[in-house]
Structure formats: C-alpha cells, structure tokens
C-alpha cells in the first residue's frame, strides 16, 4: 500500500514480503527438525533420559554446548517457537522496504506483542 487515501481495491506487488516470509519459515522448520533429529539420535545412542522441562535459555544452550541430547532438543523446540516471531520481524522490514508504512507499523506492533509474550516467559 503506497497511497493511503485510496479506498478502492488495489493489487500490490508483495512478492518481496511473501518471499521473505517463505525463506524465514522454511529455514526455521528445517533447522528445528535437524536439531531435534540430532538430539533424538544422541539420546538413543547414549541412552540419555529426556528432561521433563526445557529449563531456562542459558540452561538449554549450556546443554547444547556440552553436546547433550536435551540441548539439541531444547534449541530445536525454541527455534520452532521463534520462527513465526522472526518471520514477523522480516515481514515488517519488507513492508517498510516496499514503502508500505502502515502495514510496516502494524506488523511491528504484532512483533512487539509477540516479544512481550517471550519477555513474560523470561520474568
């Protein structure tokens, strides 16, 4: 949307926005599944028990640094959770790039709300 005074239907060239979203989501689920599969293989080979909860961010990344299955599984789950948030950020930037300020701002608001939900989880 470049002309906000227009009230009739218009079509927009949103390919940049769409392709940015596709890239982020596809990368997100591929990375997440790769980490989860690695974690499961390690758990089976080493007969490691799976944790009953993920734990804090620092705990999850500590586990990953030490090559524990729970680290890979935890980061895999977190990557999946974060994928839609990263896609919101990317979409906001793409809207601003194509000159659509209104939806750039709306998407930024969505991103902020999602970040607040993450922020609440860290309290």
């Amino acid at each position, binding site marked *: *949307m470049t002309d*906000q005074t*227009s*009230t*009739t*239907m*218009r*079509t*927009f060239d*949103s390919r940049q*926005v*769409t392709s940015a*979203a*596709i890239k982020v*989501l*596809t990368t*997100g*689920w591929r990375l*997440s*599944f790769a980490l*989860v599969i690695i*974690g*499961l293989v390690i*758990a*089976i080979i080493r*007969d*490691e*028990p*799976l*944790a*009953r*909860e*993920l734990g804090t961010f620092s705990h999850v990344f500590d586990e990953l640094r030490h090559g524990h299955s*729970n680290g890979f*599984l*935890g980061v*895999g*789950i977190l990557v*999946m*959770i974060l*994928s*839609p*948030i990263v896609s*919101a950020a990317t*979409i906001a930037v793409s809207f601003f790039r194509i000159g659509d300020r*209104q*939806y750039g701002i*709306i*998407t930024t*608001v*969505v991103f902020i*709300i*999602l970040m*607040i*939900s*993450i922020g*609440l*989880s*860290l*309290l």
Partner: protein
Amino acid sequence: MDLDYSLALGLAAASAAILGSMLGLGGGVFIVPLFTLYLGVDPKIAVGASAIAVVTNSVVGSSNHLRNGFTNIRLSMLLQVTTAVGAIVGAIIAIWADASILKVLLGVLLVYSAFSMIRSRKVAYPNASPDTPDPYSIGATFSDPNSGGEIRYVPQRVKTGLAISTSAGVLSGMLGIGGGVIQVPVMNLIMKMPVKAAAGTSSFMVGMTAVATAAVFYSEGKIDPKVAVPAMLGVFVGSSLGSRLTKRLKTERLVMIFFVILTYLGASMVLSAFDFNPFG
C-alpha cells in the same frame, strides 16, 4: 528414553494431524483429548505440547500456502494484533485455571466444531470488482488451482473480524489449539473471503497465536520435551499424510464420520472433567 511411550505420543499426534488436516481444523483440536484421555498426559502439559505442534504445523504449512498465494499477509497482520493479545491473556488464565475447566471448555469447543462442520456452507463469492471499497488495503488476488482462473477479493466487516479474533486468541491461549476452528468460518462467512484464502491466512496466523501460548507455558515449565518432541514430529508426518489422503477421499462421508468422532471426544472431555472416564 522411553521409546514405546514416545512412539505412542508420536502416533497419536500424527493421527490428530491427519484428522485435523482432512477437516481443515489443524491438529491442535485433537491432540489435547488424545493425549489426556488415552495417554494419561497432564492436561496442562498436553496444552503446551499442542501449542508447539500447532506452531510446527503452521510454520511448515504456511510455506506452501504462501507459495500458492492463499495467504493474505496484510489481513493476517491486522487480525493478529488483537488475536495475539487475546492469546497471551488466555494462556495466563490457563496457567491459573483448574484443569477440569480447560477440559470442559475444550469439550464444548469440540462439540461446537462438530456441529459447525455439519452446518458449514463454505460459501463462494463472485470476484471483487476493481471499484470495491478497500479502506484497509487488504484486497488480494490468487490463482485458483481448480478453475485455473484468478480470484480477486476484498475482506469485508473487518472490525467484526478483529473483535472475534480476540476471543479466538483467548480460546487458543487457554486450550493450545490453533484457532482455525473459529478463524476460518469467520473469514469465509462474515468477512466474505474465499475458503482457500481463509484457510491459508488462518494457517499463517495460528502459528503466531500459538507462539504466545507456547511462551507462557514455557515460562511455567509446562513444555515437556518428552511430550512436545513426539507431538512435533507426529504432526509433521501426519499433516503431510492427511493432505494427500484428503484428495482421495469423499468429503461428505468423512464429515459424518468426523462429526461422530468430534462429538465423542468432546463429550468424553467434559465427562472426564467430572472424573467420569468413559473408557473405564
């Protein structure tokens, strides 16, 4: 790790995703009842795992919907403002609410879904003309793979859609479901969007809605990898299978079968909230 239990959870999640994708409801609606009624998972852990599964389904599925042009990104962002706020509120309520309340709510929602499926009309609308008022700049076009033609539409009654999205968000947050059960009929019947665009836009939105739920449940230690990982993998496999099976099976008969399944699961959830286990 307990492979048998993980496999059982994975199979249950895959079954949920197969059923969900056949009905266009997503797997979330079925995961919580299957996990709690058959596999003895704590309802709150099941809601947390369901939220992760819903995010997975959305992230994987949206890539395809976006490629096909079914997702209206502007509309999804507009509706997501109120939906995400509702989801945070719903998830906070769910953490403090008694588990039996969640069971009753989900049971009622399942029965509602069963009846709305029977009554659903899936209305088709004529193409919007270039002069159609579009004050929110959310008009869009996509190529219909069935007719081969270009479909143009402008979502209507946006304020009503925003209001209903808030309640869809609250329910999603409380129950770990995606919210597609509510969003798709609202977009199709109230906002007058083509079904494919409604499903594609809803699929993209539910991932973001479930993120808010997943984050709150994560903070409360209710994301159990033993349950969430099989749910993720099961949903991934099940939704791919479900979408292939859907093309081969007749919809009318399936709707009747699923009406019975949804009603049965819904009634079982409500009864189990009162410590009456219909499975003995």
